[in-house]
């Protein structure tokens, strides 16, 4: 829906990727766009991720705003050379002469019984790259507003779309062209005893966990990180100053995960607000398993509840 709005209002926005045309995308994210906007503005590309990213660089530096789809995050890696070496640094290395207003959308995370390589959440690889933004919405309405913001942003945005939200969540979205801000967190729920920072589909498990914690008399504040890089640490620090406790929840592996960066920033800037050690609830530092074990890999509400309770020990 966000694609459609922005293509209607900005003639330079084009959609490219594998199966985004007639097929409307494997998750139907671009359904109907080719009929509305034609085959030039909604293009099926050859089956080659480096092509998708590399041609996006060429298109974006020469007047277009490509919104590219990578079919699954596990297939992003051939495109990384273009993202790291060109897209992220084009503006910097030309002193602003050329820039890359590109959005690369990709499904993120697991939990939908998909084949191997279709359930990865490797955002930390992207967050380490200077010069790009990494965004991950937590609901259909946020996906709409953040995608509009990403398309309108003059710099590259990696837009991670949690697959569990495609399937698990139905929400009426108002197609009003209203973008949400990038580079800021969203407080999904206010609370006074503990801050829980999460993003993407993990907001679902987190909200279930904090509902249970309510019954146990623990009031949790839930922060949706939304923009994973650069991190809006101020919102998190303000919350921690209020609650004195921090739990970070993410689906990606824990090792050098985005949670580690948040924990380090809070340790650097808010250590004396903390009444308990920071807890991380994350995917294991293993290969994302095939689907029989995927729900044992993805942090459960119970793991989140236990981590929060540990901060009260």
């Amino acid at each position, binding site marked *: 829906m966000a694609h459609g709005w922005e293509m209607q209002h900005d003639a*330079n926005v*084009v959609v490219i990727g594998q199966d985004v045309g007639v097929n409307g995308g494997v998750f139907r994210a671009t359904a109907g766009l080719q009929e509305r906007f034609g085959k*030039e*503005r909604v293009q099926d*590309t*050859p089956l*080659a991720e*480096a*092509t998708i*990213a*590399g*041609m*996006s*660089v*060429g*298109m*974006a*530096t*020469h*007047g*277009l705003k490509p919104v590219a789809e990578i079919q699954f995050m596990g297939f992003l890696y*051939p495109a990384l*050379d*273009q993202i790291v*070496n*060109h897209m992220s640094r084009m*503006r*910097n*290395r*030309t*002193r*602003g*002469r*050329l*820039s890359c207003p590109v959005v690369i959308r990709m499904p993120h995370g697991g939990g939908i019984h998909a084949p191997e390589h279709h359930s990865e959440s490797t955002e930390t690889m992207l967050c380490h790259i*200077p*010069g790009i933004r990494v965004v991950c919405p937590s609901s259909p309405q946020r996906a709409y507003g953040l995608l509009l913001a990403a398309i309108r*942003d*003059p*710099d590259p945005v990696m837009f991670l779309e949690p697959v569990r939200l495609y399937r698990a969540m139905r929400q009426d979205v108002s197609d009003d062209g209203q973008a949400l801000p990038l*580079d800021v967190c969203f407080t999904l729920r206010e609370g006074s005893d503990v801050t829980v920072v999460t993003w993407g589909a993990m907001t679902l498990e987190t909200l279930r966990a904090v509902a249970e914690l309510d019954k146990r008399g623990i009031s949790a504040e839930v922060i949706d990180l939304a923009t994973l890089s*650069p*991190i*809006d*640490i*101020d919102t998190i620090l303000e919350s921690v100053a209020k609650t004195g406790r921090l739990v970070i929840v993410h689906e990606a592996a824990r090792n050098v995960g985005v949670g580690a960066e948040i924990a380090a920033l809070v340790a650097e800037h808010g250590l004396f607000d903390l009444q308990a050690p920071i807890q991380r609830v994350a995917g294991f530092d293993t290969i994302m398993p095939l689907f029989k074990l995927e729900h044992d890999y993805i942090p459960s509400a119970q793991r989140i509840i236990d981590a929060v309770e540990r901060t009260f020990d």
Partner: protein
Amino acid sequence: MTTVAEFKIQYRQILGPQGEAVAPLPQFAQDAAEVLRMYRAMTLVRVFDAKAVNLQRTGQLGTYPSSLGHEAAHVGIGAAMRPEDVLAPVYREFGTQLMRGVTMTEILTYWGGDERGNDFAVPRQDFAWCVPIATQTLHAAGAAMAFKVLKQPRCALAYIGDGGTSEGAFYEALNLAGARALPVVFVIVNNGWAISVPVALQTAARTLAQKAVAAGIPGVQVDGNDVFAVREVVGAALETARRGAGPTLIEALTYRLSDHTTADDASRYRSGQEVKDAWALEPLIRIRKFLLTAGVWDAAMEQALLEECALKVDAAVTEYLGQAKPPTDAMFEHLFAALPARLREQRLIARKYGAKASDH
């Protein structure tokens, strides 16, 4: 078995190594002023190149990739392109860039370790040097896609080296350009060597031009030391692309008379005899002889040209050496259109600990 596909690769040469015409001269080559323009450009590149190598040897420039021996390929292409077209160079194509308006000062600024050298005053639309191998071919294809979508009668031209043809991005770019009939021309400057690896170790293919066949686009070979042939073949390919008839792959055969860069020593891996033989075929000799034979050039004019080039190069060097080191803010200034709040703290740290702007 029946034959379902076959191919042939054609080779174009107009000027032989002694400046003799081996094929009818194209229109532009019958215009003495135009030939002189190209010869002057080739000479300037050579004088500039020698100076740049010297600057590196004396610690006044970073690692520098010499273009010695590539002047015909680079100038022929520069002459064939239109100002509104887009160039996606590798890192050695100074001849094309100078003809398109990039200044010697900008070139030295970049290779002197300062991104300001990439902020070309002219041409604003050209890509800057591409150090990762072959990735620029996809940028050219993407730019060509933009021209097609925006219905602009412009072309993109990407350079690539012989070694670069082993990269996946090169095949992907040819494939994309062919499948969408994009207005783009790819030029392989086959100078025989990818640092120390000869073409024979890159591929079993008889020519690099035939790499076009699998992408369904035309591939042609040209004598890359012959500025007339390069300009003619590239010019024709650009016009084909411009009228919507799709891309072309051109292999320009030349020789890297220099080391790969100033950080390399080619004597470790190739024979002096090979280099000596290559010098006999180098591109300036033949066009100079052509001009002398045509009676529009003489020794005095040659001397005057060399002096004029030296003066221009010296002026650029003086300008380059006179530039102050960029402030530490330069690292943050163009990272994004607007610096995210998170990075302001680091900008302050850089300011506090950074070397003063006057420290070279």
